[in-house]
């Protein structure tokens, strides 16, 4: 069973806030809160630390307290960096986080869109989605974009397998929707489907979630509307 620890990267000091929906989503989970403070190339990270460390650490501590109140197990890290992706990857590796959660703009977390591209990691996906759907009124849509009719047949059974697994974990059948689309423009279809959802969940790099929502998303620089949940791929 892959590691279920969740890394939540947040730009500090400015982005340091979690909406109640996210806090609720993370309740009783194992969370690593990563505050990253961006340093311009021409500045020594030590200099930026001098100025922003105190404020950033305070905000991180507040968020840790908030998450702990909702029964999450929380560790926090604060990094001053020229390169946010490098820091996110490194801390995720060091803390052994199998999942990345990037909070979005929406202040609700009820409708989860799960992008499934193959039967790879299906068990992981199903069990993570089950964990997320278990409490509250959340629902999940399992989405498969097949290239042609032939793939669609296979896709139908993959989707059904995933749903069966979720039901075995105690998820009600009515909380899980299956959706199969035939198209060769995966990114466009997922983008359109995601409009009616609060959370987009997928596997890292298959294809990259960044591509999936058509350049709308770049960690930190421009928030995506949906909260993103990325299952990190094991092969590096």
């Amino acid at each position: 069973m892959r590691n279920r620890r969740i890394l939540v990267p947040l730009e500090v000091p400015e982005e340091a806030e979690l909406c109640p929906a996210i806090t609720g989503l993370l309740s009783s989970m194992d969370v690593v809160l990563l505050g990253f403070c961006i340093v311009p190339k021409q500045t020594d990270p030590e200099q930026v630390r001098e100025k922003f460390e105190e404020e950033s650490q305070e905000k991180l501590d507040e968020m840790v307290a908030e998450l702990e109140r909702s029964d999450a197990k929380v560790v926090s890290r604060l990094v001053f960096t020229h390169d946010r992706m490098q820091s996110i990857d490194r801390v995720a590796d060091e803390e052994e986080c199998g999942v990345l959660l990037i909070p979005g703009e929406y202040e609700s977390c009820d409708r989860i869109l799960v992008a499934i591209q193959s039967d790879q990691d299906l068990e992981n996906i199903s069990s993570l989605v089950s964990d997320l759907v278990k409490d509250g009124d959340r629902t999940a849509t399992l989405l498969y974009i097949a290239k042609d009719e032939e793939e669609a047949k296979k896709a139908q059974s993959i989707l059904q397998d995933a749903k069966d697994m979720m039901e075995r974990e105690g998820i009600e059948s009515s909380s899980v929707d299956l959706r199969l689309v035939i198209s060769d423009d995966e990114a466009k279809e997922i983008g359109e489907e995601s409009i009616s959802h609060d959370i987009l969940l997928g596997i890292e790099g298959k294809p990259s979630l960044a591509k999936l929502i058509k350049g709308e998303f770049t960690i930190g620089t421009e928030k995506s509307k949906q909260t993103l949940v990325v299952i990190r791929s094991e092969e590096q």
Partner: protein
Amino acid sequence: MDSAQSHLGRTRSELERTLSFRQALAIGVGTMVGAGIFLFPGIAGGRAGLAATLSFALGAGVALTVALPMSELATAMPRSGGGYNFVSKAMGGMVGSVVGMSLWLGLVFASAFYLAGFGHYTVALLGDIGVSLGSPPVIAVLAGLILVIVAITGTEKTGRLQDSVLVILITILLFFLADGVLESLGVIGEVRTPVEFAPNGLGPILPVTALVFTSYLGFAQIANVGGEVQDPERNLPRAMIASVVIVGILYVSTLYVTTSFFSADRLSELGETALVEVARVLLGSAGAVVISLAGLLATLSSANASILGSSRMIFALGRDGLIPKRIGEVNERFRTPHISILLAGLPVVILALIGKITVLAQAASFLHLILYGLVAFSVVVLRHRDTDWYSPRFLTPGYPLLPIIGGFSSFAVILFMEPVAIAIGIATMLASVAWYFSYERIKQGGMENEE
């Protein structure tokens, strides 16, 4: 990963090391390449002829005997401030302070020198396309102001721009040098009569070494960003040594090509932009324009790197309480150290207006060479003292002979400089000593008042 606990003891935040080997190497090469290739060939070749290749080779030798001990120190203390930190640790605050201040101003002189060169290249390029506009010093000042503004407000894009500029630059150079070497050997084009090795005798070789040593100041900039380099124990020594070897080879080849095509007398006339005329002979007027453009990029990137290096020195001085700490603070909005960038950049602009290229270059070298000598000796001091915290992963080969040679040869190069440059250097150091003692007194006074 460095956790701050190791040196501040009050925090658990981390500083990400983001510079790869390639980027560290680019900082070294990018800082150096502007001078040795685009500004000195005419001046150096004019004084020593083909023998100037020896001057550049000697310079590389001295730089290497310092780069090796500096690598050892950098693996033991990989944080910003570089050479200044090493000397402070080995020889105490006063010497460290003088070296730190000298290095700040040494980089200011170096930067002004590169900008003055930028002015010459701009005028040459404009002249080639038939425009006569502005004089070199005026252009240098404008460029300096733009660099300061970009350094304060610049985004990540400018950093990326600088990386690609260097790749373009090296590509142009390799093409030009390959063609030049082949033509000078008679492989392509007509067979040439060999030029005289030392038209003015062997006398100018050492003074020219002293003059062109500014071309080798960049490797220390790699130690200056030591806190940001990934896997520092491996990458710092490799990047420092490789940068000296790479630019050394480029310089010697450039000088070989330049002095193969023009006599020493002609090179003296051509001065700073002699390389443009070599390109004209080799590749026609298109070649001249391309080399002029390369010269613009190279001098500007060297000037920029030196201003940023200088501002980091100022931060390190503030961190260690040798100047008011406020000076190193970053701007809330841009997160850049605006005060230290101004303190680095504005003197550059003023000096660029004076525009005496050879004096600026030697003053810069003087101040760096003092540091280099002390850095080399610091290795001996620290190893001899055998303290707990000193555990370098890279060991200077040929210890103790090599660092001792490095130390003495750094000081020896100074002896061959023009008196005016030596005078400027000594005055700068005396001013640093005076600052050190008066600031200590001000700080003590301040504390007494608080009590």
